[in-house]
């Protein structure tokens, strides 16, 4: 019997995408069911795209972004952070666990961090079980 495996979409910004590359360079391993989408900046990811991914069958969505640096005013990922936190609360109201949408601070040399974090997230998502958002929404009156 083929065990169920969650599907996870990871939006990786230009900078953290280098970090994701780094994981490969350095020989870290993480589950193959994490699919990366490279975007210029995490702030370009519209919350509706995150919902779309969940609708299309993703069991969790991850955004990897640059950690906003203290003293540096310019940090579009602060916008991402605010949006993700709002989106998580909204999703909770329709019964989607908050853990299914996450933001991870990954800088371009943090391949190991990415591999570890993402493995943990896959495990946790496995524990949550399939999301089946489309199915759930159809069931609802």
């Amino acid at each position: 019997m083929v065990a169920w495996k969650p599907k996870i979409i990871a939006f990786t910004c230009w900078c953290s995408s280098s970090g994701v590359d780094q994981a490969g360079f350095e020989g870290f391993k993480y589950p193959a069911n994490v699919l990366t989408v490279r975007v210029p900046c995490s702030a370009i990811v519209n919350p509706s795209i995150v919902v779309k991914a969940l609708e299309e069958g993703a069991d969790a969505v991850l955004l990897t972004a640059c950690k906003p640096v203290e003293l540096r005013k310019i940090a579009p990922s602060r916008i991402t952070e605010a949006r993700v936190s709002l989106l998580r609360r909204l999703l909770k109201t329709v019964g989607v666990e908050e853990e299914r949408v996450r933001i991870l601070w990954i800088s371009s040399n943090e391949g190991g961090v990415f591999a570890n974090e993402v493995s943990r997230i896959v495990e946790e998502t496995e524990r949550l079980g399939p999301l089946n958002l489309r199915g759930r929404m159809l069931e609802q009156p």
Partner: protein
Amino acid sequence: MRRVTVLLCTCGSTLLEKIDFNKVSKELYKNPLVKKIEIVDGLCKANTVKSLSLDANERIIAAACSSRLLEAVLKNLSNAKVIEFVNIREQCAWVCDDKEDASSKTIRLLNGSINRAVRSNPPQYSDGLKIVREAMVIGGGIAGVRCALDIANAGYRVYLIEKEPSIGGIMAQLDKTFPTLDCSICIEGPLLSEAGRNKNITIIPNSEVVGVKGRVGDFRVLVKVNPTYVDPEKCNGCGECANVCPVYQPNKYDVDLKPVKAIYCPFAQAVPLKYVINKEYCIECGLCMSVCTRAAINLEDKPKMLELNVGAIVVAVGSDLFDPRLKPEYHYGEYDNVITNMEFERIICASGPTGGVLLRKDGKPAKRVAFIQCVGSRESGPGIGECSYYCCAASMKEARLILEHDKDAKVFIFYNELRAFGKGWEDLLYRRCLEDGIVFIRSRPSEIKRSPNGNLIVVYEDTLTGKRSELEVDMVVLALGFKPSENLAKLAATLGVSVDDQGFIEEAHSKAKPLETRVRGIYVAGTCHGPRDIVESAVEGSAAAALVISLFRSGNVKLPETAVVLESKCTGCGRCMPVCQYDAIVRDGEKVRVLESLCNGCGACISSCPQEAIVLGDWGIEQLALQISGMLGD
């Protein structure tokens, strides 16, 4: 229907054992959007790419290594306009243990990109924009002058904007420079006159920038030239006018210590060497007009506006020094013999008010002098929180100057941490100070008291011994920290550059782009972006000049892909404006507009627009949605 060509790279044999290319290819051919699939052994090889004979209109999926490695190579080797990169090496083969897993992940990633590529448009880079090969340097201190000279010597015209009647800045006011104790104006003077003589440099004194429009390569700068009441074209600097002028005024150049006439030239080495009138003091008696043989004086002079078209701007406006009145415990301005280090520079200078003799206000020589460090820096009070960089070395230099003038003098330096980090500072300053018997006391004195004989008593706790003491001296010199100059915030707003939390100009990136600002084509040099010394200011002047020259030589300006507002869809709700971290979105009538010189292409705006009225290349909701459904499809 548009279809794509998929290039699968085996990376030599590296990926063969990790990914089942036959299976991938078989699966992908099921996708109707795939025209053909080529399995190649290296997309980074010129021969391989050549043998594929790709058409310019072909939409290509390059499944290979990281696009950071491949993108530039492949874009050089092929003329295809649409290339989607899929990293099947670092982000797939190398992180998967199992060949089957890696193969199915490859298929998913590729199906996503295939979906995306059929909807992609060739990127629209705005290149070939015109460049005006003339530069503007704002501020004529050492950084600005060095910068202007270097740009001018490369053959480009430079407008040097100076708010004072003469260029020179703080360095022109100093007596000596550290660590060598060289005469300051003797070093800077020749540079100033070189700038004055250089045919490519137009010095515009008494002026300020009041407006900027345009973008990198093509700025239109509005400059206000304040009236000087003397026509610089006619004045030959003879000085007859000052001889007959009956009114004296304090001279800013001498920190108000040595009076000059109301019609004056700030200092002997001034460039341009022209007289100006300070209208605050002028009584309009007309004596100067009667002696000026060239009829250069016009008391009705009015401000003038100039519009200059330049391709690049260097901001080198410098900084102000901390106002010691904000630290009442030191009684500056109240006790005669508490002076600032800038006043000290003028007093100890041979051309200063006392001819270079260190005298107190009461005319007595100062025999015992104390320096207090970090006045207005490294504190949470009214000054800046940071170290002001120059003052340890400056005070050690000044201490040595005192001993050079008077061997019997006694000098004390109240320091917090003594920072002698520059070239030659350890040897030429710190060690010699110790050898000369200068006393270093680790303390931030709590108060200065005055004794009946006019002497000062410094109250302090030695933080090395924990002992509280008092020290009687003739004079106290306050080593003032830097602070952002008064008009810096206004200038920054005019230029569109940002300031940091201390109020200095913020760099585009403190390490990768240390002299660039968030506005492309506007650079910084010198103390206007944080405390630094003469050496570093001059270095930055030259470095900023190099950036300007490389922009001018580059031929045309290439802006990154920037966001564009679709006028037909924009309702002017303005939700995108606060989201933009670069302040690149401005109101334009009832709609908004993106300033392309500020936009960095992050896309925060497009995901905040409820009308989907902002686009940025292929990063719309539609393309991302297609990619995701391709990836997740069964």
